[in-house]
């Protein structure tokens, strides 16, 4: 369980990091918290020729607030997000989801941006970003672009990030009065979700079912506030969401079982939101 040989570059500045990415492109893999990358390297499931360690880029660790949005830097640790007063005040969904992200030891090192860049289908943070309508900020030597989270993830561990781009942070719109809910089914506390649901309701209901499909996407259930109150319309929303699922079977359950679990979790989320 030793990684295959690799080169190591520690980024000394943002410019250095972007220049390295634009030169080496596919040959380089970015290391942030290392909580997913390093185990897969030790198992030789991933074997990057070169590691670009960006953990020294202090400016990427900040969590800040502007008039319309919250910015979370790519290197903010999970623990930073969990303990942030700004997040508590404006992004309740992350506060609800974060205790489900692994265990304290992993949350102390793993990074918010790393989880998005890794695009694990069973991870909580990508699902929350889609549910929240967040924007992913990608930077290369030429400049930066902003991608809506729901367009960012495109496949199993796949995103629209180009090899020369660095994920530098995420913007999450402020939505006063939003109501959110998060439930997941995991065999043990801290495990990746077998099935999970992240939901946010402000002007419209945004639901993401994750953990059992290749990447998190928005369920096609747009609705208005009034219709959440009665159980009949909630059931209609749930069935719309479940019908749209295409779950993958794995050790923990077949597709039908996962639909059934999603139905239960959706019911719980909508009940939470309806209050």
């Amino acid at each position: 369980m030793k990684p295959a040989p690799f080169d190591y570059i520690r980024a000394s500045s943002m410019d250095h990091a972007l220049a390295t990415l634009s030169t080496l492109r596919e040959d380089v893999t970015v290391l942030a918290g290392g909580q997913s990358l390093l185990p897969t390297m030790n198992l030789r499931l991933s074997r990057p020729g070169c590691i670009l360690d960006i953990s020294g880029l202090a400016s990427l660790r900040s969590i800040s607030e502007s008039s319309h949005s919250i910015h979370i830097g790519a290197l903010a640790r999970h623990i930073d997000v969990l303990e942030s007063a700004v997040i508590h005040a404006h992004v309740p969904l992350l506060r609800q989801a974060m205790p489900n992200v692994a265990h304290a030891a992993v949350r102390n090192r793993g990074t918010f941006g790393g989880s998005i860049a890794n695009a694990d289908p069973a991870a909580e943070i990508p699902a929350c970003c889609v549910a929240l309508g967040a924007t992913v900020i990608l930077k290369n030597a030429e400049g930066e672009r902003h991608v809506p989270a729901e367009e960012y993830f495109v496949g199993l561990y796949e995103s629209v990030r180009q090899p020369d781009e660095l994920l530098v942070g995420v913007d999450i719109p402020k939505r006063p009065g939003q109501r959110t809910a998060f439930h997941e089914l995991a065999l043990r506390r801290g495990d990746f979700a077998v099935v999970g649901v992240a939901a946010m309701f402000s002007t419209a209901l945004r639901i993401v079912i994750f953990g059992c499909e290749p990447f998190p996407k928005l369920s096609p259930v747009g609705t208005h506030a009034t219709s959440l109150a009665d159980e009949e319309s909630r059931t209609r929303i749930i069935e719309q969401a479940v019908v749209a699922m295409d779950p993958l079977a794995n050790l923990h359950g077949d597709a039908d079982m996962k639909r059934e679990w999603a139905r239960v979790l959706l019911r719980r989320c909508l009940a939470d939101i309806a209050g």
Partner: protein
Amino acid sequence: MTLSKSLPTGDNETTGIIGRRLPRETARRHVRGAGRFVDDMSLPRMLHAAFLRSPVARGTISSIDLEPARQLPGVVGIFIHSDLAKICAPMDMPQSPGFRFPDEPQHVLAGDRVFWQGQAIAIVVAQSRAVAEDAVEAIGLHIDQHHAIANPEEAIAAGAELVHPDIATNIAMTLQLGPQEPSGRSNPMASIQFTFARHSAIPLETRGVIASYEGGTGGLTIWQSHQMPHQQRDIISRLLGIPEHKVRIVCPDVGGAFGVKLQSYPDELAAIAVSKVLEQPVKYVADRFESFTSDTHARDHRMSANIVVNPGGWVEAFEADNLVALGAYAGYPRGSAGEGVQSVNMIGLPYGIERLKARLRLIYQNKVPVGAIRGVGQPVATTITELLIDKAARAIGEDPVTFRQRNYHAEDSYPLTSAGGLPVERLSSRECLAKLCSLMDYDRLRAEQTTLRTQNKYRGIGVATFAEITAPGPQYYGPLGIRVTSQDGATIRFESSGTFTCVVAATDQGQGTEAGLAQIAAHVLGVSSSDVAIVAGDTAVTHYGGGAWASRGIAICGEATRQAASKLRDSILRHAAMLLQTSPDELTIAAGAVCETTGKQRLSLKELAHHAHFRHDIFPPGYAFELTASAQFTPSMAYFMANGVQGSHVEVDIETGIVTLLGHWVVEDCGTVINPMLVDEQIRGGVLHGIGAALYEDCAYDDNGQMLAATFADYMLPMASEMPDIHVGHVETKTGGSTLGAKGAGEAGAVGAPAAVLCAINDALSVFGTEIDAQPATPAVVMRALLRARCRTRST
């Protein structure tokens, strides 16, 4: 505490420390991070080994190209079957009645055929483990993959492909117990079909060995993470053709073993053989991925069983048919029959039944061999028994505790022979159950369960009675010709400062056996246990002994230690009597000093030791100084049978199938309790293993024998956040098989916990008229049970 009173005269009744809660010194060392495990050690010129392992479960090796790997800088040697076959003999099994072994025994490296995914094919030794792993990747291996025999039902079907074609069947052994003609008297009251997934034991420290062969002397020294240094010396000496007395096995700190480390493994033997070839130290420490695909596994049973109950509510009989999938080979050197045999012959053991009828079939398949892991088949027998007992109680509408209390063996029936043919000295099942019910507040939990059901909360209470074979005697392996001793020994030395060094044949893998032995010696010698140093785990200095297996350390080596300490105490008192001009009968030892029987201190052990070591001038000429005493002990009984009852309280989320553990209780009877702290923690550790088996752990394979759960992301271990508080109580029924009266406690937790948890889940589900059919009882298993009930409701 009345324990010390039953010990023979010569032991100290007022200051005795047997039965006291004493913390152990080794725990402090480990907490400080000062443990010294195999992988912490390094020798000059030491090389590191890594293995090329079969990527497929069944296949024929068509070619293997080592050249690219040999070219890598740092690679010292690469060896395949043909290289090592000359150095290390194959792992030829002793005969075992009724067990079919393949004609071609297992070699340490695969020949032209591979039998499971993970089987070692080539060993690379290099200057570092990382280089060795690079070289493993560079080997060009071509295997013609064949369809693997991975499904047990498929393996016994007519025309099945064969794991070992030379024995013309995949059935390794068939065993019938009890009357085979139909009794025709009574119909079963309840029946079940239950599947037990494969799991392993997952010690914190993986398997590891450093072998150092010296060409000059022809001596071989091995540091190994193992339970049984003497067994290993015997095997390694024979397979490598090195005289036994020139082989030394040292077991340093061992971070958990649980039966995983009681076998000889082909990869470890290969690393040792390479050290002999190169005359250089070689280290091999399995990484976790290797552990999952090469450590012994356990369970893998498919059992159908039923219970016969007469109209008066008395259990008459159990019937069972069990199919156990072993893997590609039997574990070496003990075979793998125990996992099967004990899964059927212990069914119904605590109950006064008339008949046990069973059929057992053990089969080969293309998976890692099944060996002897904590409980060895007994957790399965216990689970089957207790699920059926509960189901029968439900069928007649009786509380499961009441049903059990009536059906235990009559108190005046002991000693007895069980329906499965096993001698039983005495079980304290009734007393344990009564104590458990009070400990867990059974009646209150039942009342609460009823109330909560009206709020759609579904809680379950499970109670499981178990019996456990501990400290097996010479009949266990002796008649089979398997060279595993049932004996242990101890030597205690009176040191010049008045303290003691005690060299024991038992070994300690973290459970605290050494601390328990020190406490026994100190009790007899009238000193504090911190005045007794224990030396263990080194064939160069300890008695030949069985090491750790089947919960025997305290029961067997404890008795040997007690006897040695008692002899040494007699010697010390004789020396003291000589100095004090009195009779040894007038003296005793207490609080580190020789005293008169009235309690008056006469001479400290420190002073006595000074005289006994340095003032021979004041003793009569020719006086015999005996400052060391030894004893060896082999139980004459078949085993010491421990027993107990466990209780589990769970809540089942009937929408998701998630089971939450609310509490766990154990009342166990391991005879004399030496140190309740040690026993309690052994019980708790065993319960955790049992909960893992019941709810989480599954060595899942696909239909072609590929292991799907070979990392901790996929193999679910029970974690602290899921575990309930585990409350432990004791009943002490001493065995008559030793003066000490202690039975084993190491497996009790694992033997009874799965049954308690699974019975609790069924209890919660009983309002829906459904039950689970497999362990681990994952959310999917529980949901399947609930969906079956829903389907039935819809169709009626």
